[in-house]
């Protein structure tokens, strides 16, 4: 990273960096205490500037917010600074290679796959990816429109809609920090034999890229699960067999047959 990285503190506090630059800068923050202090102070000043724009919202907003909160589980507290306590193999800090990263960028799903020589898509063992609920509410407290739709039509018949997984009685949730500076929250419901991902905290991508979800079997085989055209919707899916992990990568628009970048997150559903 260039020597003038400190000067990015201002743009960072103003949310004026691209997702990639913001992720890089966050890595720098891990090792630069004076930068952390400066960012904190800048965020405070920016917040005061924002608060000076206060406008009373329409009165019905509060009722919607309260109703949604009432049906939305809270995340567990983090037990320490830094990466969350949630189990995830993909949450270690490190540079996030973009699409087209070189072959020497460490062990990747793609390289494992190449080694195995498995043809793509021949081993689809996840039984039911019931919904990448495009129009829906996907996650707990999903996008505002979806959430309204849920309230209006609370039994939309999507057995695996992510919100239902998140709301299951026995749902276990975990949040992992992704390598590109976002968060991925996973819910697992053993009784429903389903899991769901809340993808709303993944950094926005440009027009040319999408997030793609994969299952990674214990023999390294990767299978395409879903392309997230709209990360605001999250996804629900059948719970995979033990030993299978779930990974998220950044892929060129339209998705890839096999992962072409390192996962930004990888989660073992059985460790959630």
């Amino acid at each position, binding site marked *: 990273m260039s020597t003038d990285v400190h000067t990015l503190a201002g*743009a960072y506090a103003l949310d004026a960096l691209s997702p990639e630059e913001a992720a890089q800068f966050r890595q720098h923050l891990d090792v630069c205490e004076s930068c952390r202090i400066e960012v904190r102070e800048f965020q405070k000043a*920016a917040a005061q500037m924002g608060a000076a724009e206060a406008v009373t919202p329409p009165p019905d907003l509060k009722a919607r917010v309260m109703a949604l909160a009432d049906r939305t589980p809270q995340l567990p507290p983090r037990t320490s600074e830094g990466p969350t306590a949630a189990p995830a193999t993909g949450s270690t800090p490190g540079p996030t290679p973009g699409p087209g990263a070189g072959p020497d960028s460490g062990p990747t799903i793609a390289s494992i796959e190449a080694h195995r020589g498995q043809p793509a898509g021949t081993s689809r063992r996840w039984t039911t990816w019931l919904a990448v609920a495009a129009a829906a509410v996907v996650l707990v407290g999903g996008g505002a429109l979806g959430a309204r739709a849920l309230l209006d039509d609370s039994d939309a018949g999507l057995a695996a809609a992510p919100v239902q997984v998140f709301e299951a009685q026995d749902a276990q949730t975990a949040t992992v920090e992704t390598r590109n500076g976002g968060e991925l929250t996973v819910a697992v419901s053993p009784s429903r034999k389903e899991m769901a991902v809340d993808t709303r905290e993944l950094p926005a991508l440009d027009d040319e890229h999408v997030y793609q979800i994969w299952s990674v079997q214990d023999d390294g085989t990767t299978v395409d699960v879903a392309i997230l055209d709209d990360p605001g919707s999250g996804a629900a899916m059948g719970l995979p067999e033990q030993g299978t992990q779930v990974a998220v990568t950044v892929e060129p628009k339209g998705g890839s047959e096999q992962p072409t970048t390192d996962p930004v997150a990888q989660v073992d559903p059985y460790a959630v």
Partner: protein
Amino acid sequence: MGSDPGLRLVRSREPNDVDALVGRVAVGDSDAFSRLYDAVAASVYGVARRVVRDPERAEDVAQDVFLEVWRKAPSFNDARGSAKTWILTIAHRRAVDAVRRNESQKKYDGRASVDEVTREEPLDGLIEAEEHGAVRDCLETLTSLQLESVRLAYFNGYTYPEVATLLDKPLPTIKTRMRDGLIRLRDCLEGAR
């Protein structure tokens, strides 16, 4: 008596109010969440309105902000800053994300000119009037390039390369002006307390 504006000012100056409420929200206290909403909704909605402009989309953003606050309150760490800063940082990031999602369809549609950015919009007069005055005074201490850089980024959701293009300045200049502008704003606001 219930409409005595003095009461509001006293309450809004109570520094630990929002922090204490978030602490209670962290353990699932929905009454505290209701009060937290009352305390910060205008600020959250105001940021969303300024950035995304469309009132309905601003409401959607504000709703998502409050749900994120509800979900994440258990991991809020006050050693990293005040709860109100935390909430407004979330609000701004979500508002900017909403604008950028929309912009992927049509970019540079002339949505924001520099003239528009410096326009003052009417403020809700009741809330934290003193703080508003301090912010306005302090923004006046910035150079015009610092001010434009900060405002185009914060209020219009432009990235710094976009700001550099709009203002026709080199990238390093804009990066530096944003930081210098925030330093001035920070120092001035701290002096104002």
